[in-house]
């Protein structure tokens, strides 16, 4: 596994308020981690698959998303999208969704490496 990606995942998982994190790589494989009890990694992988399909649907509608933010009742799913279908995603508690640490994580997401 790409060490840069693993490092990003590890740093994300250590941030307060991060319930799960995942990356979709250019080769269409996934690296995920769950930090919430009851949320399994296969579930997070499935969510990453759906995210990539949604990003593709947007692209088909001429909406080339750089960032996505899905707001649910009690959480937010923030994603950064790169070329070749690369996606980095964090499932966040509402309090953590706009914290500087999370913004910093997204700015450091290794789009080029992934």
């Amino acid at each position, binding site marked *: 596994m790409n060490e840069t990606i693993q490092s990003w995942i590890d740093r994300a998982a250590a941030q307060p308020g991060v319930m*799960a994190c995942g990356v979709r790589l250019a080769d269409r494989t996934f690296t995920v981690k769950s930090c919430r009890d*009851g*949320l399994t990694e296969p*579930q*997070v992988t*499935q*969510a990453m698959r*759906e*995210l990539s*399909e*949604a990003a593709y*649907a*947007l692209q088909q*509608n001429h*909406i*080339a*998303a*750089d*960032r*996505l*933010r*899905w*707001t*649910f*009742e*009690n*959480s937010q*799913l923030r994603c950064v999208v790169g070329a070749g279908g690369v996606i980095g995603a964090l*499932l966040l508690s*509402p309090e953590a969704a*706009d914290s500087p640490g999370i*913004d910093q994580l997204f700015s450091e997401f290794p789009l080029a490496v992934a």
Partner: protein
Amino acid sequence: MTEPIPGKPARARQILLVDDDNDFIVMFKEFLLRHRPGAWVVHTADHYAPALACLKEHSIDLVVLDLKMPIMDGQQLLMLLKRTHPELQVVMLTSCATPESRSLCLQNGAALFFDKTEVADGLEKIYAALESVASAPTDGFRGLLRQVGLPEVLQMECLGRKSSVLEITSPTGSGRLYIHDGSIIHAEIGLLQGEGALFQLLSLNGGEFMLRPFVRPSRHTIDGHWESLLMEAMRLRDEASAQPPPSAPADGPLPPAPSLPSASRHIQEIVLCSQAGELLYEWQTAGVGHRIHLLAAISKYSVSLAQSLALTRVDRLEIETANERVLILLQSDRRVFVRSSQPDKGAR
């Protein structure tokens, strides 16, 4: 289908009956025509499409809607009418009344709700109620903010390049918005005036509004384009809803106006559709069908994501591209797509 009454007076009111039960339509129309000759011009429609066509062609005073109809039911049509024709009086008349449907219809802006079984008991009673509703003042219209959102009313006034004064009353404040030739030119709430007052009025939850004929305000305090102002108001309201409530005393001074952005957004297109994919409103959208399909797809992905991640209800998806922002709202009864330019990107 339209049937004018021979020899009707100039002030005959126009009523539209929308019901897929032809027997009932015929019976009720005959009653209206016979009961007080000349009082009504009666139009009929058996589903939403001819009803909407009739509303385009005629100046309808009152719509009587059946609840249970094919394709778009009365509840959906009621909500559509309250968006597209907020001044229109709508009365629900149904054979499948429940306390829930009654409550929902009244909440969504129906003036009255009748069970058809009551019609069998005494049409006169219903006739009197219809006359009363149709006689409501027409020099302005009144509504509840929970029925028709203030931004939507403002949008309709501005898109229609109208001139009016919108008086807003709520438990937390009362104020006025002045619209002239489609531009918001002045706002005031308490001692606050200008854009700060506009944003504060647009942040009110609950209350009533009255749309009145235009009178020139004492000052002209707002110059910004209405689209940018509304977009900014939405952003500020979203931000405010994420903050804890202010701790100022109830009778204390008004909170300070929110700060203004360094640069503004411009709305490029808007699509509003029902959960079933019926177009309710669009503005500057080249491919409405594609947008409705996209909204359906995003709604489906939202449900899947919620299931996969064991989450509750989805509210919205915000999308940033290199120079645009797209907001998709997924509500229980409607879906909204708003695309705007994003000149000040770089903060995130």
